[in-house]
């Protein structure tokens, strides 16, 4: 993947798992991990360039700033880079799945754990073709 890959999750183990799986799946050679959503937001602001593309694998239930608040913040900031989001949650709550449809940058909703078939699915996703 030529785009940036950000992994945002308050659970250290999931971050390690997703990073290792992403590398093993040849999805991205060097994902950047964040334990707190505000830190990921700072990174996006600092690295905001017009031609840049960034994919974020975003957890929903996090303290301080949850996944929904994070996406609301991105929308308010009107950043220049193209940012797309894959929601990654352990929740199988249909309400969360329904809610995710209201965010334009969300291209997929994947239940944890992110395993090899999930990365294979994302590689085939039409919305992400320009990111590879």
């Amino acid at each position, binding site marked *: 993947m030529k785009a940036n890959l950000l992994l945002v999750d308050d659970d250290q183990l*999931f971050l390690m798992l997703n990073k290792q799986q992403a*590398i093993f799946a040849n999805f991205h050679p060097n994902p950047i991990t964040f334990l707190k959503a505000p830190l990921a937001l700072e990174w996006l602001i600092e690295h905001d360039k017009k031609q840049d593309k960034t994919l974020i694998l975003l957890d929903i239930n996090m303290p301080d700033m949850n996944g929904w608040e994070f996406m609301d913040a991105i929308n308010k900031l009107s950043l220049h880079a193209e940012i797309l989001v894959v929601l990654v949650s352990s929740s199988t709550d249909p309400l969360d799945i329904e809610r995710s449809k209201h965010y334009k940058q969300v291209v997929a909703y994947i239940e944890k754990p992110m395993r090899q078939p999930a990365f294979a699915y994302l590689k085939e996703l039409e919305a992400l073709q320009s990111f590879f």
Partner: protein
Amino acid sequence: MNENLLNAKILIVDDQESNIEVLEDLLAMRNFSNVISTKDPRTVLSLVQTEKPDIILLDLMMPYLSGFDVMNQLKNEGLLNGYMPVLVLTADATLETKKNALIAGASDFLTKPFNLSEVELRIKNLLYNVYLLSQLKDQNFILEEKVKERTKELLHNNELIKKQNEQLKEIAWIQSHVVRAPLARLMGLVELLQLNETSDELGKDEIVDFISKSAEELDGIIRDITLKAHHSKIFEQENES
């Protein structure tokens, strides 16, 4: 009024003292013990309101107020409601008079001169009708009370079901959000082992250690849910003894 009709309070209204005496004697002979009377039709309304008779024996032709006028007064006060019959006393047994008396609110007629058996039978019939009517009213009241009680019970049970549904929703939420987290970790870790894909950051020993921790976490959560369900008595009927 109770089942013993002889205790019923009877009000006689007649301007002729002799008629009142005859009726009182006849009623005494048949063991009616609660008889009051008046010669002045103008006092009937207040007597009815204070004495609350069970039946009125009413003359039609009287000075100041006729029997029709008296019935109109009672009707206007809502007192001719089926629970206090009016037995009209008349020497005029024409069809026209009877029709007018019925329209005015009379329940039956007694023709002068009085016959002992007829007086007793007509009074007893009317009183028995009132007794049955009041019994029916009591039954209706009891039924209405039962319906109210059942409705209250149903509402209470409905509240109970709502509460249980809320608790079930809460458990479903816990299952969805809390239980799945350690489960998802386990699934992810197991796949890494299967792929034999380890790294410096996440080696085989670390993976096994995390599997063990996640399994313990899962066990703790399930125990909590069991305890919560037990404390909330969610699967028990509250009114079971």
